[in-house]
């Protein structure tokens, strides 16, 4: 079942070694990608990729992503290739930079009939985006009295209807972060939410940067043009 193995850990260790420990984004919960001028927190997204690769990828694909896309998160081409080389494809060969993030080919019956959704754009497809992903991953509780659970389902207060077929997979120290950030369950959930926000909208930061410049430029142009019209055109 656990198809991915731990070469990614090594590769990411190289990337993150120099980075400072993560800032506390959990109390209160916030994401660097939030807001009109937000951008992706690359360190958090790298840690989130580690969580995705070691935990989520056992069942979930993200087939719109390729290993070369990790270069946008700050990995060098060699490091991304190292990550890909640690992934075994269905035929036993190693993945390449152009391989998509595939899920193991398992029938729906292996997941209790609920096929795990593709995570490429999940942050755009679910209302609430990163906040929802965080709430879902940390929302598992015991079912309240009077709730009859469906077979093979788990109670989750963030999931619409409260009963989700995905088991609680994130726990403390499910991964080891190379930058020394304590791998608590909430930290892992927040990091993977940031990673999936990047995956759904890889151009988020660039879009906001260009947008800010465009708005400043056209505000000035508008002022000049309107002033010129008042003065010249009557």
């Amino acid at each position, binding site marked *: 079942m656990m198809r991915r193995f731990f070469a990614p850990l090594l590769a990411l260790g190289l990337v993150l070694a120099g980075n400072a420990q993560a800032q506390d984004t959990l109390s209160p919960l916030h994401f660097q990608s939030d807001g009109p001028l937000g951008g992706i927190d690359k360190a958090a997204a790298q840690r989130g990729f580690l969580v995705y690769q070691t935990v989520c990828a056992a069942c979930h694909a993200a087939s*719109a992503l390729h290993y070369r896309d990790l270069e946008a998160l700050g990995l060098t081409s060699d490091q991304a290739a190292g990550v890909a080389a640690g992934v075994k494809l269905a035929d036993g060969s190693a993945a390449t930079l152009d391989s998509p993030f595939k899920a193991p080919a398992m029938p729906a019956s292996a997941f209790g009939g609920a096929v795990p959704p593709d995570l490429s754009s999940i942050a755009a497809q679910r209302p609430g985006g990163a906040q929802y992903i965080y709430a879902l991953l940390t929302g598992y509780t015991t079912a309240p009295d009077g709730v009859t659970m469906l077979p093979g389902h788990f109670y989750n207060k963030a999931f619409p209807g409260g009963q989700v077929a995905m088991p609680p997979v994130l726990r403390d120290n499910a991964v080891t972060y190379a930058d020394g950030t304590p791998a608590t369950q909430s930290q892992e959930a927040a990091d993977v939410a940031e990673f999936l926000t990047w995956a759904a909208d890889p151009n988020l930061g660039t879009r906001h940067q260009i947008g800010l410049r465009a708005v400043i430029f056209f505000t000035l142009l508008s002022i000049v043009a*309107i002033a010129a019209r008042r003065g*010249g055109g009557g």
Partner: protein
Amino acid sequence: MIKELKPLSSLAALLGLLTASGLVLAVYYNPWHAFASLGFIEREVNEGWLVQAYHATGTTLLFGLAYLFLFRAMLARGYRAPDDLAWALGVKLLAVLLLAGWLGFVLTGGAAAYWALVRAANGALALSGAAGAIGMWFFGGPAGEGTLARLALFHAVLGVAALAVLAAAYRRLKPKMSPGVCLDHLARFAVLALIFSVLAFFFPHLGQPAVNALPGDPLTLPLGTALPWYLLPLAGIADALPGAWGGIIGVVGAVAVLAALPWLDGSGPEAVRSRWYGVLTWVWGLDVIALGITATARDCPQASLLLALFALWYFFHFLVLVPLVTAMEAK
């Protein structure tokens, strides 16, 4: 004449942008894998996400301006001679844009687009006689991947048609250029570009149904009417009337009464602003907005009743109130 020309230059600039960005999108668009090809444009094509955002935001601004200009012309009664031809061209442009806008939305291949296409194609093919034959020719059969290939062609053809309508309006109005007009155009362009940048870079999905971020799938069913904002009032009228014929008559009728406004207005050309006509037109504008809002709020139990009331008022305004008020004022 310069007054009528101002909207035309903004509309022409936006249509030009849509044509240029649409050409780029068409190069990479694959109707057989519509949703995946849009993802490819967004992720793999160099600056593809930018071109896509331009196309989506250009559409939003174009519809916003077209609606505003038509409403302003209604308020100022700009549909009467000597501007009746400009009004007719404006309504014609709106009709072309509405159809092209619907087609463009369907081409995205998302869950909402998939169901909009399935409903329209099934409705059209269920008709008998000539209408069914036209539906068969338009959709080519039940909705499938091949349908999108022909609809992509119609979308492009209608884009050219919209340009042709604008060109006809230009020929009619014969613009004159002077330094004052140039400065005027520059100011308009700057403000338009400012609004465009805010929308394109900070709200790229403004007015699009959120469920369309999911790939089109028979098992992913959007709740209620999931259409972009510029189609919602018309969708509300179509939903208010029963059956496929009801929808068709509602949509065609809603545009036809706009085109017929010069004849529905019973006052002579010498009549100036009338208070009652102005009030009624504002109420009608609110009614159109209410139609759009109610069309999306289908989980509200009173929605279908409200929708019927708002749709009734839409036609009541044009067919009864406008002739009545203007005829009284002509006395």
